[in-house]
């Protein structure tokens, strides 16, 4: 079987800053992955619905507004409800240190702040995606 890693890069909520998300999307594409980019202002429900239809192995969430505790955990909760708990969920953006343990607990496996080298994200995905 000749699989490719499919990744959904999504911007939940009202924050309109998508430069980071686009840069990550391009880096993942250049690493040979198929990246589905959905644009701004997605609700958690929309993100999960897209993840189901696109059958992605990875969901990358990007948020700079400060609402990550609610929105990121909404996504992981709904993914679980829909039986999609085998999906690797990553978070990026401005995330305070103190929030990281709680986010991990909710199922966000990798958290990548500003300045993260792209290679780190690529290898994290390659190591953590179940074949």
């Amino acid at each position, binding site marked *: *079987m000749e699989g490719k890693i499919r990744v959904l890069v999504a911007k939940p909520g009202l924050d309109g800053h998508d430069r980071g998300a686009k840069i990550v999307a391009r880096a993942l594409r*250049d690493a040979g992955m*198929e990246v*589905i980019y*959905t*644009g701004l202002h997605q609700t958690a429900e929309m993100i999960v619905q897209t993840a*189901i239809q696109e*059958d992605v192995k990875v969901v990358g969430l990007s948020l700079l507004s400060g609402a990550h505790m609610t929105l990121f955990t909404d996504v992981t909760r709904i993914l679980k409800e829909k039986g999609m708990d085998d999906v690797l969920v990553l978070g990026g953006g401005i995330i305070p240190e103190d929030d990281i343990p709680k986010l991990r607990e909710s199922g966000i496996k990798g958290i990548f702040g500003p300045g993260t080298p792209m290679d780190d994200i690529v290898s994290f995905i390659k190591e953590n995606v179940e074949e």
Partner: protein
Amino acid sequence: MKDLGQRVLDGEQRAIAKMITLSENNSPEAAREMKVLHPASGRAQIIGITGVMGAGKSTLVSELAMEYRKMGKTVGIIAIDPTSPFTGGALLGDRIRMTKLTEDEGIFIRSMGTRGMLGGLTSAVYDVVEIMDAAGKDIIMVETVGVGQAEVDIIKIADTTVVVLVPGLGDSIQAIKAGIMEIADIYVVNKADRPGFDRIMAEIESLVDLTTEAGKRSIPIIPTVAKTGEGIAELRASVDEHLELLNGTNEFQANRRRRYEAELIEIIRKRLMNLIFDESIFKERIEGLIDQIEAKEKDPYSAAEEILSQVLK
């Protein structure tokens, strides 16, 4: 748990998604399940949307899908974007223009990379059409990559092919009289509120005049502004009218047969390619043969024949 094929027939979203992945990845399981799905397919109306880059195809697909939803029909959308020939990766961004559809359970959208296929489609697209069809979608729309002139494979799948053009192409219509200007069942001039609209309408009209045989249907030209929904109802009516005209005719039959032929050829092509290129004889010998070709000890044809005769014996 029920078999995957049965779950697709029940219209279960995750099963449809999983089945598409298996088929994209050429898994043997896909081949097995397709045997279950094929008898249940053949009912959906298949609409191809093609056109130049930036013509607004995704927005148009999105609006047209909503138009069909108003009539109570379910819709499957296959949105194809190019795969990089260098990295094998792809950025699939058609959904950006389709966010209005995401929360509607009656719509299933799948983004696909071309994965090395030329012609504007992707190799698994025939399977994916059958999967969505068998899952009970009434309408299936296939959006090709942004095309130049030669990407005309969409006609092998669609009952109705819609070619989307925009003002500002100007003289290039003259230049692309071949290729995509030969495959339209319907022309759409999108972004009709832009300067240059009259000119492109005139260009297409004269092309249609020139190419319509006496007494035959002349290809309709529908102006739209997909962003505002203008002209979409007319487009929907025109697509359905085309299908009605086709229904029961030899041409309809011929269309469907052409699709099965293309699908059959594609499956055989894939199997043969795998047979040859995954074969260890090929991998072992390729470097050595290139050395010999470079040193003029052997010509490329003899080298190819050597490999083929070994692999296919």
